[in-house]
């Protein structure tokens, strides 16, 4: 606790008014990053003592130091750090891809597919239902036409479906988990990301066609999304081949090479609109399953995994929009509870139909609570496409993500402890 207070006081001193005349506010991103790296890690360590996952501490530290509370990490700092945040995400996705082994997945493929399908289906139906009945008692929905409400709830349902693979892999790495649940949840989170991106293209086109008379169902948009997904997969495979060749022929300066890959994926996705998460997931998956070098790749990233996680989750925390939470906290809380209930139902039905044991049926849902990245990206697309209610939608989604991102890692960690899969992974 003493170091934490000490670092905090030092930062307070650096940002004090008496030193302000000497400062160059345009160059504050490095200071913000350095501070948050130390501070968030120390908070994470303290939170760990309360048997909570470290990443919850990283996120909380980001929130507290972010633009809405202390402003040690200002909004412009968060923007300036987006590139590093993107690189960290690419590295996390490479690890997640590398952790998915075909051998293990094959055994659970039926269960994963079934859970993903039923979770998606039930969550969509559940939020559609909320939209239908919600107009009678939720003032927020009152001003919308039935068609607008249909579009709103359909899109809300779509965005409530995904689970954050980054959070999932971070908790699993921290707890050194291995086993059936670990594979099931990671596999489910990754597969669902693909699934949701495709579904989103349908629901968005449908919503536009029903709410805007000038728009027909837009197959071009659908094709565009499918093009993005297949392009990401193709690039992922190419990078995977690149990784294998590099390890076979050169095998030097691995850290630089991995950072180069992360940067390259970021640039490719930035320039061509592909998904960096998918590219790196596929690349990691390909390198792990189609060569003997996957372990080298993963161990090289894992050596620096903690600073990567601290940077990524602390910046995520700082980016969380607390003003949105302030505006819509009650409805957001309702959505979080409903989402949890629907995830439970989807997991229960999906695992029961494939003959999984009671443990998976009753507890599996807890691993799918975290939510970030993909949902956020989709919310931005919705905000751009529906100017009438897009900003309210965005505020609600941001608030829901804020809550889920805090409670998600806790649920997952508790689950992994309960099913005794923590500490089983060898270094």
């Amino acid at each position, binding site marked *: 606790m003493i*170091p934490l207070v000490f670092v905090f006081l030092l930062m307070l001193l650096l940002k004090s008014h008496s030193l302000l005349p000497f400062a160059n506010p345009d160059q504050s*991103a490095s200071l913000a990053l*350095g501070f948050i*790296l130390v501070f968030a890690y120390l908070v994470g360590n303290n939170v760990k003592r309360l048997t909570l996952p470290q990443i919850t501490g990283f996120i909380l530290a980001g929130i507290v130091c972010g633009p809405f509370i202390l402003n040690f990490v200002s909004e412009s700092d968060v923007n300036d750090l*987006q590139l590093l945040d993107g690189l960290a995400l690419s590295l996390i996705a490479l690890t997640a891809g590398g952790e998915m082994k075909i051998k293990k997945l094959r055994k659970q493929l039926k269960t994963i597919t079934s859970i993903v399908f039923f979770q998606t289906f039930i969550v969509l139906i559940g939020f559609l239902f909320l939209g239908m009945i919600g107009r009678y008692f939720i003032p927020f929905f009152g001003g919308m036409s039935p068609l607008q409400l249909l579009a709103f709830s359909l899109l809300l349902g779509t965005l409530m479906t995904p689970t954050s693979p980054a959070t999932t892999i971070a908790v699993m790495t921290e707890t050194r988990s291995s086993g059936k649940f670990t594979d099931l949840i990671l596999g489910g989170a990754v597969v669902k990301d693909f699934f949701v991106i495709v579904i989103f293209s349908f629901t968005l086109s449908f919503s536009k066609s029903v709410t805007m008379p000038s728009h027909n169902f837009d197959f071009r948009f659908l094709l565009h999304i499918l093009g993005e997904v297949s392009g990401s997969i193709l690039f992922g495979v190419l990078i995977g081949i690149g990784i294998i060749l590099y390890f076979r022929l050169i095998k030097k300066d691995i850290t630089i090479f991995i950072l180069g890959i992360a940067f390259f994926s970021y640039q490719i996705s930035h320039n061509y609109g592909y998904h960096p998460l998918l590219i790196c997931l596929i690349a990691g998956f390909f390198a792990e399953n189609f060569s003997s070098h996957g372990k080298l790749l993963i161990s090289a990233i894992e050596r620096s995994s903690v600073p990567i996680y601290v940077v990524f989750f602390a910046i995520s925390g700082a980016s969380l929009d607390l003003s949105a939470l302030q505006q819509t906290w009650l409805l957001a809380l309702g959505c979080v509870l409903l989402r949890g209930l629907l995830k439970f139902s989807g997991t229960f039905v999906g695992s029961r139909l494939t003959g999984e044991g009671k443990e998976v049926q009753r507890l599996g849902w807890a691993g799918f609570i975290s939510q970030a990245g993909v949902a956020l990206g989709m919310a931005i697309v919705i905000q751009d496409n529906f100017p009438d209610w897009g900003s309210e939608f965005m505020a609600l989604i941001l608030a829901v993500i804020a809550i889920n991102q805090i409670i998600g890692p806790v649920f997952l960690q508790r689950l992994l402890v309960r099913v005794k899969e923590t500490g089983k992974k060898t270094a």
Partner: protein
Amino acid sequence: MQAIYAFGLIILIAFLGARFITRGTSLSSVNYFFYSGFIYIFLGLSLGRSGLEVLSPSVLKGLTPLISLGLGWVGFLFGFQLETKYLKRFPGKYISLSFLQFLFVSLFGGLVFFLILRPLYPSEQIFLLYGMAVALGLLLSLNSPTLLSMASNVIPKRGNYYYLSRFLVSVSGFWGIVGLALLSSFWHFPFFESKIFLRGGSLLILSTVFPVLIGFLFHFLTKKRTSEEQMRVYLLGLVFFVSGAAFYFNLPPLYLNMVLGITFSNLTKIHEKLYPLLLSTEKPLYIIFLILIGALWEVDLDYRVGIFVVLMVVLRVITYILPLPFFKVVLDFPLRLPARFGLCFLSSGGIGVAFAVSMKLAYPLLLTDIFLTIALFGILITEFISPWGLKYSVFRLDSEEKK
């Protein structure tokens, strides 16, 4: 498309690097270029604004924290080796020689540069020219131990000259970096001339006290049993924090992190535990740093820059060679100090590059762009000839002494 070319380039350089480094048993200039990582400056140059533009100005802005970390890292590593226990092993005259050498090189070099700067840049304000002359003089005084490290495998007989040169190149940077701190505090951007002593004094206190406090914190955090993972985060985080503070106040991260390194090194007892971690983290960080510097570098050549580059190389040779016999007499130095011994000081290595970039980042002026070009060209040329200089000086002197 550029991203794909860039990726190909990185692979190619890595491939060539792997080949050269594995073959690099001889002390040739090409081998040293790969060994020291300077080749990555060219990679950065080809990826930056002057090349494929993959590392465009906006991308570079996003990567600024990595540049600040790189600068801080160089400073920390340098400071960390300045443990008093280690320094006390050497005679006091070695330190005096190092200081005299610094004084002569930086003052003589700075004066010559100033005399040439005035007629070549008549439209620039005089106080800016003073600053640039001082910076160029300080840059001349920096040396790097990288070449000696590479050469240590191939040096036939290690004798007194090897150990003396090793000491001098390791310590000389201290004076230059302190000079940089004084320059950045009392010639602080954007104040320059207003309330110079008050502001300068305050900034100097800030840039010394803050890293000392962080050094104590680092020691406190690592005093108890610390895992490698914790150590890595503390190390990266605290160096980042100090570098970030330096950037925020337009102060040199090199100095602040050197102070952090010195403080921590003299407090801690876990040097043995920390060295493997430093070594494993050093190379990737350093390479990234060099790539980013290459990308940051806007090569703007004209005849004036050419004159300064030539002058820089010539002064580097002359200022290290000429005064040595004189220093021998003044200090009553126990070893013979022939002029050619000065040829082992041609390389300024990563610390020289870091110095030049510190200046460029702290002073966003046209003149510092020119400074960076002069500095980098000067450094690259002297690095290229430095293996020859080492062979001709330390190798031969030690062999002769043994005979």
